[in-house]
């Protein structure tokens, strides 16, 4: 604690108190399980938009992306960020159909297109594991970052952050999460704009920053990192992150929480536009960070240390406080949403499948208990960090995209597809994609994502041809698809 900056520490404490106050106020509006899960399906455009933005930008974005730019330049824009942004826009174009299918979660959607209710707990289990791992990663990154900034020892910081978001998520469900997200999203975007504006003035303008960044290494301003990234790898990374947008449990939950198709469309349209500008600014801030630190002799060995170093040793205290608030917003808004999503996965996708006749009050208790238990387990796991942040992030993206993306979304539109073919394709995509990733990220020259997605599509077509069209889900989906085409 000897290195703790009192201003940063005070901002951290005040912020947590403010957040808890908002969460307690919002929790009083949570009256039943539908409120807890999906905001009673009454979420308006502003709340939905800022909730998505706040959830989207995580500790991984702040530390990992800024660090990646510090180490490798702007090529991150060519694959990861382009994939994410095109994914948000892509989801906009299918959201009308998804919203009208009246599904609450992604496993609901899988069950709908496969015509098999057992797909709910199966898909739910995969998403639960994925979501929980993601939560652990977020906690690790978040706690490392806040520890570096405030000086509070890591083992305490993990539990402080863990306790806060577990408490307010379990208390108010999506109502608390969404209202705190609204505040966090605005703070986060504002913090990055203010910080970049300061850096632009400090370093003599954006052109000067980019010129000096290119002078550090010309490959930093090359879309392929000076040829370090092959086009197949760029394509595979792009596809992996593009696909995750369609398969994230929290994205489907928020779509279900919107009050109508119009709101669902607005929140994705507005979020995509705001996030794309935000990420462009964040990446430029990463470049400015590299220029500032290297230029002032504060260069770091570990890229993940770049952003904390900028805050603690380069910018003035008031900018540091603004950034601490932005960082805290990025951390808590993502962890609360993911924790809510995995708690709902347990209650809605797994528990209610095996206990279909239990009352809503019972499901609410299960949701809350799962939220607390999984949150505590994630916090405990974060005490012994698993691997590096970016590696696990990519690992998870490959799995979700390979297994679920194309089989599920093709089946929404190709209504005559046999449900068993869709299930087989999901399993094949998961096994091949994950296997290739574990085996080193590729099979021969073919990246893992291409292997997984290719296997799932190939098996989808072969199984459909072998089984013949059973038209299991045709009556359910065809009408909705026709409406979508007309609307």
């Amino acid at each position, binding site marked *: 604690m000897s290195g703790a900056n009192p201003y940063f520490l005070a901002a951290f404490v005040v912020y947590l108190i403010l957040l808890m106050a908002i969460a307690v106020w919002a929790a009083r509006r949570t009256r039943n399980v539908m409120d807890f899960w999906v905001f009673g399906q009454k979420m308006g455009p502003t709340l939905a938009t800022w909730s998505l933005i706040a959830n989207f930008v995580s500790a991984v974005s702040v530390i990992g992306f800024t660090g990646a730019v510090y180490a490798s330049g702007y090529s991150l824009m060519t694959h990861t960020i382009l994939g994410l942004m095109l994914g948000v826009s892509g989801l906009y174009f299918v959201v009308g159909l998804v919203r009208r299918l009246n599904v609450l979660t992604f496993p609901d959607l899988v069950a*709908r297109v496969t015509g098999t209710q057992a797909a709910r707990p199966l898909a739910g289990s995969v998403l639960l594991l994925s979501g929980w791992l993601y939560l652990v990663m977020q906690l690790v990154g978040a706690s490392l970052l806040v520890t570096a900034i405030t000086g509070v020892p890591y083992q305490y910081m993990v539990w402080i952050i863990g306790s806060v978001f577990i408490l307010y998520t379990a208390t108010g469900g999506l109502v608390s999460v969404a209202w705190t997200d609204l505040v966090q999203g605005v703070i986060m975007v504002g913090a990055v704009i203010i910080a970049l504006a300061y850096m632009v003035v400090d370093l003599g303008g954006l052109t000067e920053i980019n010129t000096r*960044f290119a002078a550090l290494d010309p490959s930093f301003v090359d879309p392929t990192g000076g040829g370090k990234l092959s086009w197949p790898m760029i394509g595979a990374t792009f596809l992996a992150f593009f696909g995750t947008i369609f398969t994230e449990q929290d994205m489907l939950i928020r779509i279900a929480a919107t009050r109508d198709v119009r709101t669902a469309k607005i929140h994705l349209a507005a979020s995509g536009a705001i996030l794309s500008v935000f990420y462009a600014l964040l990446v430029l801030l990463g470049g400015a960070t590299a220029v500032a630190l290297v230029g002032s002799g504060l260069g770091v060995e570990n890229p993940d240390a770049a952003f904390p170093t900028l805050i603690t040793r380069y910018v003035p205290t008031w900018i540091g406080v603004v950034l601490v608030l932005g960082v805290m917003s990025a951390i808590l808004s993502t962890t609360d949403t993911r924790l809510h999503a995995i708690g709902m996965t347990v209650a809605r996708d797994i528990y209610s499948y095996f206990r279909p006749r239990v009352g809503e009050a019972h499901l609410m208790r299960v949701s809350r208990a799962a939220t607390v238990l999984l949150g505590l387990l994630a916090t405990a796991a974060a005490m012994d960090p698993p691997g590096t942040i970016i590696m696990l992030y990519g690992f998870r993206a490959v799995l979700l995209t390979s297994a679920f993306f194309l089989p599920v979304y093709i089946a929404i539109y190709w209504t005559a597809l046999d449900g068993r073919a869709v299930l087989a394709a999901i399993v094949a995509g998961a096994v091949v994609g994950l296997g290739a990733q574990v085996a080193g990220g590729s099979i021969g020259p073919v990246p893992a994502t291409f292997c997984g997605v290719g296997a799932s599509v190939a098996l989808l077509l072969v199984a459909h041809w072998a089984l013949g069209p059973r038209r299991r889900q045709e009556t359910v989906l065809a009408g909705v698809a026709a409406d979508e085409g007309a609307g």
Partner: protein
Amino acid sequence: MKPLGLPLSMFLVFAIVILAGSLGAIHYLIVHVLLRRPFGDEPAGGLAGAAAHGERRTAESREGGA
């Protein structure tokens, strides 16, 4: 040509990312605001209640011939 001090290819990547993220907003503006095309209403009554247990989906899959 180096807009904002970036090689043109890198500058274009930034522009493409912003355009990619804004496709939904552009579509919404043109189709739903300017052309005033409807969104299509959802089923009357919404999902509350039944959705908590998935009865609708269970019933539908049975009807579908599971």
